[in-house]
């Protein structure tokens, strides 16, 4: 299974596309319990791409690639932004960041997915979830 999506940077596009991906993955017999986490992480990654990557510029695109390889779901989300220094992501659990809304998405993704990697200068995130 290898599916690709391209969506405009509008938050309203997130739920329809993630639901469609959820259903396609479910049709492959993958357990819902795994897919709920995958959908949540996918949503968070797309939100980050729209908000921080494409700066909510609706003319810019977010590219989503979902592959199922053996017993793993491999997802790449890429935006058209300038990227960021992913080696210095502010920890949302530090007191100085506790009231800042940013950083929690990546924290959540790292908690729920098995592998998380950034590439293309931080404008792409690759996530893997085994099932």
């Amino acid at each position, binding site marked *: 299974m290898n599916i690709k999506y391209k969506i405009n940077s509008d938050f309203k596009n997130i739920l329809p596309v993630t639901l469609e991906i959820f259903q396609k993955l479910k049709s492959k017999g993958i357990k819902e319990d795994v897919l*709920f986490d995958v*959908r949540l992480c996918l*949503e968070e990654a797309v*939100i980050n791409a729209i908000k921080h990557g494409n700066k909510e510029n609706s003319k810019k695109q977010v590219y989503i690639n979902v592959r199922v390889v053996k017993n793993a779901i491999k997802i790449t989300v890429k935006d058209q932004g300038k990227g960021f220094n992913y080696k210095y992501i502010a920890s949302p659990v530090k007191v100085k960041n506790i009231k800042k809304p940013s950083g929690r998405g990546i924290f959540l993704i790292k908690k729920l997915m098995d592998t998380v990697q950034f590439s293309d200068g931080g404008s792409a995130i690759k996530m893997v979830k085994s099932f």
Partner: protein
Amino acid sequence: MAIKVEITAEEKDKFLANFPSSGTKIYVDLNKEASCGPNPLEVFLGSVASCVCVYAKKYLTQHSIEFKKLQVEASAELSKDPPTRLVDIKIKTHTDAKLDATGKEVFLRFMKNCPIHNTVIHTKAIEIDLA
């Protein structure tokens, strides 16, 4: 720097809770007849519910999901057996936000990742000492 809260015993059943980082002070009170604030158990439940509510609003807002109502209700029972503690803690989120069936589960999982819920689930011991 850690998050700090100072509680000072005042007259009768009144306790002043000082939250230095936000400059906020509230009274915690055990007096049932002439109470001037919540009791500690209510503060705890309020903390869980408010954190879940913050996360619920964050999820709905960042997905551009419209809602007019968002209310989180927390309830618990006092244990009948020792040690004295809260049991049967229930958190219910009431919202008119439109979510598909799997979206509701994803929304729930997002809320369950709020810091207070994570703290309750993962804390096995709290250090209590004399200064």
